[in-house]
């Protein structure tokens, strides 16, 4: 089925994928600002704004905003990442216009009440403490921070000292400055037609704009060469590794995805086989791709009891290094089958499509149909994998250990 992109006069982009017979619809709304835009002394600003956004408008208090969404039965979510802030809603298609009206009202008139900003700040501080009790998540945040530095390695929650500095006036200013049509993408998939979507969004959001576009700084992805130990009294050592990859729109994007699938993500993949199946070193070991606007990276996580950390890291690194040497035709075909298999399952749901389309449009200005993705994966050859690994060798690397002991053997 075709993917349709519409660009409105004020710069808002809308991508629509009607799915025949679907009874629900998913809408992702993504703004191109995030933790990278937090003022350095007020880290956490974008995330505070995302949360307080729903805590009142001139015509509704916080409860009334929540009640209005809930009356429509909307399943709502939102997230602040480093380069974007996204709001997502899953609903029955008959409520599409009402859902859009509510988001328009909050986006353009949110009042960011003082008391609500203070509550969100307090809760964010509590969440930062709770992060200590979720070491896998904590380890990955520390790994991205060590690997990417300022500003791409920022953790959206900010820090206790910088959260302290955030005021409601500051949040209001930040939101007004950042909430702009040219930075907004709507991605809608499910049981809904193109005409309804375009006319509704045009009607409600078409009047946005007027301010000159914000100047966008481009941040390149540079991976640091470092080994960091964060001491923690945990049972397991939580290991994070990061090295560079290509951006979403790069010609070697599909070879990169196949290379990662050879390394991780299935029972026969190399990390699972070598770390877990053969040696029983970890329950959880995986590598995954993360895109930034101007680059991509591969991150790896492994959790193992503290005394086995050295061996686990060694085995993981050996698998990363070996990838450039001996990928077989059989492994290549199997990894392609796995990647394509996902397109028929999670990839074929309204939330899967809305998520994939917004990511495509945001990162490289274009979108792919499921068939185009399948074709892109099918076309990957062994030579392209080799070419990819020559373009993006898995060095330098950032290695972070969160656990009781530093490594004894060194990197």
């Amino acid at each position, binding site marked *: 089925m075709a993917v349709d992109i519409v660009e409105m006069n004020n710069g808002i982009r809308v991508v629509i994928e009607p799915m*025949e017979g679907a009874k629900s619809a998913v809408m992702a709304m993504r703004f191109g600002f995030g933790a990278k835009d937090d003022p350095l002394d007020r880290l956490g600003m974008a995330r505070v704004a995302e949360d307080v956004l729903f805590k009142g408008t001139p015509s509704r208090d916080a409860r009334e905003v929540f*009640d209005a969404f809930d009356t429509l*039965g909307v399943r709502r979510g939102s997230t602040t990442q480093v380069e974007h802030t996204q709001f997502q809603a899953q609903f029955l298609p008959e409520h599409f216009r009402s859902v859009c009206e509510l988001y328009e009202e909050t986006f353009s008139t949110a009042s960011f009440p003082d008391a609500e900003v203070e509550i969100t700040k307090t809760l964010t501080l509590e969440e930062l403490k709770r992060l200590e009790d979720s070491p896998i998540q904590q380890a990955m945040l520390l790994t991205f921070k060590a690997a990417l530095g300022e500003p791409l390695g920022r953790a959206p929650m900010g820090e206790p000292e910088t959260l302290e500095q955030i005021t409601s006036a500051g949040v209001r200013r930040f939101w007004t400055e950042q909430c702009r049509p040219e930075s907004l993408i709507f991605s809608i998939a499910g049981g809904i037609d193109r005409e309804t979507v375009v006319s509704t969004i045009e009607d409600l959001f078409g009047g946005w704009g007027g301010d000159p576009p914000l100047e966008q700084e481009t941040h390149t992805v540079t991976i640091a060469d470092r080994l960091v130990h964060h001491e923690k009294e945990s049972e397991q050592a939580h290991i994070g590794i990061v090295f560079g990859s290509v951006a979403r729109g790069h010609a070697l994007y599909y070879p990169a995805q196949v290379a990662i699938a050879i390394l991780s993500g299935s*029972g026969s993949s190399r990390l699972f086989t070598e770390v877990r199946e053969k040696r*029983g070193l970890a329950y959880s070991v995986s590598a995954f791709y993360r895109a930034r606007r101007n680059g991509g990276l591969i991150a790896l996580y492994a959790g193992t009891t503290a005394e086995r950390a050295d061996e686990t890291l060694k085995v993981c690194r050996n698998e990363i290094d070996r990838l450039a040497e001996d990928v077989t035709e059989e492994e290549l075909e*199997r990894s392609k089958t796995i*990647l*394509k298999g996902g397109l*028929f399952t999670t990839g074929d749901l309204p939330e899967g499509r809305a998520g994939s389309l917004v990511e495509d449009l945001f990162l490289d200005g274009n979108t792919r149909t499921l068939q185009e993705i399948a074709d892109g994966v099918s076309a990957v050859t062994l030579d392209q994998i080799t070419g990819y690994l020559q373009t993006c060798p898995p060095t330098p690397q950032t290695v972070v250990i969160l656990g009781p002991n530093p490594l004894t053997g060194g990197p």
Partner: protein
Amino acid sequence: MSPFTSHTLDNGLTMIFEAIPRINSAAVGFFANTGSRDEVPEQAGISHFLEHMCFKGTAKRDWRQLSLDIDDLGATWNAYTWWEGTAYFHWAQSERATQSIEILADMMRSTIPADEFDTEKKVILEEIAMYHDRPDALIFDHLIRTAYPDHPVGQSVLGTEETVGALTREQMIEYFDRRYAPENMTFIVTGRFNRDEIIAAVEDSCGDWTSGESGRDQPNPVFSGQTRVFPRDNVTREHVTLAFPAPSAASTEAITAEMLSAYLGASTNSRLYWAVVQNSLADEATADFAGFSDAGLIYIYLSVDPARTDEAIEVVLQECRGLHGDIDTDALGRAKTKAATSVVCAGEHGLHRFSQLVDDLSCGAPLRTLDEQIEEIRAVNADTIARYLSSYPLDGEPALVALGPRTELALTH
């Protein structure tokens, strides 16, 4: 007309089919009606360990061949074990379903290879260690153990370092032979599929399975309203759960318990959200219903500042007491509308439907279509909740567990 049809093989293996015509995939798998509550205490964790061993070799395939053959299907696959049972599934494009059945059926006759047993035991011990680093997950084991101190349903799914460490292959073979019998298992398929082809494939792969036990013979769990504190100095927050008795998942009142939980403690815009989270007393305060085949709980989870734990618990207990005689029908209506949207969304998702059927089968609940589920949700109202609360009050002594820096709580009921 019901979209569920069933079929039973001569050896007692039941098959359940649910067609979802829109999608191009099918989820297929087996539910084994055996979980942690079927274990003797000194073998705690054997069901879950066995689930892992089913991936480690059969008469036809070693572990490597199994993982290669599974991945050649491009399937999303997994397995999980809980109190009531163990489930294995593949989710892939419809054309792969019969190949998936052959592989899954082969795994259900695992040889539990001796040379893989100790390696996999290390993986389980890592999983236990990982769980210890996750207090917000670990605490539910403590809660169920506290609520049902004298019943096997309170046993930990993973087991402990000691029980898993001591398990032998012989014990596992004995358990497996007894519990993975065709009359104790169900085959399930949801999505788009050809029914005749599926029956032929299951018949072909499972027709020669030999009999064993089915079901279980246990008295109903008896709820105990005790408080237990698990001090941990390497945990930052105080993690608290409290639970009240509720009907079993098979009961017609289970849906009332679910709606009441959502009204009380959905993650946003619920009574606990406004009374606890929005008063900065906890970064999370949520309620949910946990149903077993013969018992149930409404439980609340809190992540709090250790110094404010007593205050937060007091507010939660007040909110629970406040449910008696004070239901905001508008707010209840909103919770119902949201639940109905979730049912519609799940109906488009082959794997969600598979898991829902596994849940219902494991608890002896009737299988329900999406429309029937929505009907059940709509039928809940302030009157049914009032009746529910007279049988299952939320103003008595809860089972309460705290895990974190605190060594004691100043509980006054």
